[in-house]
């Protein structure tokens, strides 16, 4: 169980990006963070995984606990060792390495000898990667690359995956497929997810619980069901009107404007 308690993040000593955020990710659950660009979703993921430290970002207040251990002062590799792995936004694979070598780097912190078996497990989950195992990963398609970065994270045998915008830049069908796999990993492996997404509708379909973030604060939270049925959320993040039809162009423009608050 991950608990984030009153965390405040300041970038470059002056820019307050996260203004006291608290939430939790229970074991075996998918929790999503929704919100517009610049709300601080990615920053909070990096604060948890420890990657923030390399970016001149500092946690100035609050604490982050993972299974009752405080992790906000730990280095990224220690946090990975405890079973918390971040999948960065933008499909950051090692482009000149083959698919299989990418998967092997995912197991870097492990000392056991079951790596080969887990590679096969990833291939089973994403059969398409199996056909491309010797391919230089930079030449995979966007969807394949997203599968590969998720597979690479799985190689560390994580209990919690911090997944940042997996559907970014993918066709809607592919995005749905990726999210389905996320659900599958959760139910089959018991991995919990903290999922950052723009695609609110598809995300809430697989999530257990959700938080809405806005300019560094959490403004709303609830079970996925509550969020889906909440009128404001529907209007601002899913873009559906009362009758369940797409809003007209004018109205959508209006909602976009309001989304910025």
């Amino acid at each position, binding site marked *: 169980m991950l608990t984030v308690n009153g965390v405040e993040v300041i970038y470059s000593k002056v820019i307050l990006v996260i203004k006291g955020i608290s939430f939790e990710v229970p074991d075996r659950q998918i929790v999503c963070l929704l919100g517009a660009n610049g709300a601080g979703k990615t920053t909070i993921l990096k604060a948890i995984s420890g990657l923030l430290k390399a970016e001149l970002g500092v946690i100035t207040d609050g604490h982050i606990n993972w299974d009752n251990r405080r992790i906000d002062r730990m*280095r990224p590799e220690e946090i*990975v060792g405890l079973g918390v792995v971040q*999948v960065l936004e933008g499909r950051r694979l090692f482009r000149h390495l083959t698919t299989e070598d990418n998967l092997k*780097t995912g197991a870097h912190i492990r000392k056991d000898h079951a790596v080969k078996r887990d590679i096969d497990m990833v291939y089973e989950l994403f059969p398409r990667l199996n056909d491309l195992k010797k391919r*230089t990963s*930079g030449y995979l398609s966007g969807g394949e690359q997203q599968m590969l970065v998720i597979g690479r*994270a799985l*190689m560390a045998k994580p209990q919690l995956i911090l997944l940042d915008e997996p559907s970014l830049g993918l066709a809607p069908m592919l995005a749905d497929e990726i999210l389905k796999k996320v659900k599958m990993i959760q139910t089959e492996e018991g991995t919990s997810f903290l999922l950052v997404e723009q695609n609110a509708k598809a995300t809430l379909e697989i999530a257990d619980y959700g938080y809405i973030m806005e300019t560094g604060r959490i403004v709303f939270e609830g079970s996925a069901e509550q969020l889906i049925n909440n009128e404001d959320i529907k209007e601002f993040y899913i873009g559906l009107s009362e009758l369940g039809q797409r809003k007209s162009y004018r109205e959508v423009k209006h909602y976009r404007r309001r989304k910025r608050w």
Partner: protein
Amino acid sequence: MDMFIQLLISGVLVGTVYGLIALGFVLVYKSSGILNLAQGELVMLGAYICYTGINVLHLNIALAFLFTFAVSGVMGIVISRVAIRPLVGQPLLSVIMMTIVLSIGLRGIAILAWGAETEGLSIFGHSYYHIAGAVVSEQSIWAFALSVLAVVAFALYFQKTKGGRAMRAVAEDQQAAQSVGIKIINVFDHSWLIAAVVGALGGILLASGSGVSIELSHLGLKVLPVVLIGGLDSIQGAIIGGVIVGIAENMAVGYLDPVVSDWGLVGGGLRNVFPYILALFILVVRPHGLFGQKRIERI
């Protein structure tokens, strides 16, 4: 024609050693983006350490090699931890200035410890062989063979082992490497260790022909045209660039120096200049060098 083959073969033989030295340079650049301008000094110190092992500690040759690798390796790690690590995250220029400071400092230490005389380092036999019409010294064959061996060993390490994969991952994307739990500063240490060891081996091999002196640090700086030609971030480019520079300087000595002398100039200096001229031309045509990595961009 005989002369051409002679120059070609001896060029290839010495060029492999240059390639080996350049490998260390490329590795540090790939993993951390740092131009290690002290690589020449690592080469020079390697030769001095081996000289000390043989002449002061009276080790046999195999032990002297191991002794050199051990001392150089430790030195590489110390440099990485003491001089480079505190500068991680600082502007790249400060780090590069630091390598210049290191290069001057290490040269000073060498003069203090061993003096400015040229010492002999004859560790290989003095026989000569005839190969394809060229006369080749035993020393240069050893230098070639050991360099090739070291390059192959390194390539296997880089491609097939966990440590090698971590290096390639860090070279590619530092933050993504961190996200899978790779400790970046360890990889930096690793790359300096390897740079120091391959540099030291290169130093021993060069010194076995030319003797041990401060001059080796300039010879070590042959890596600059080598990596400019091969591509700063390409391992195979370093090797091929090394061979190209080896051949080029020999050809310059054989064919261009006499011409320059005919013009009434003193001549004889083209060996050191020609590789840079070549690098200049190659950079104009191919700014990334012959094998430099272009980013993979899917369209």
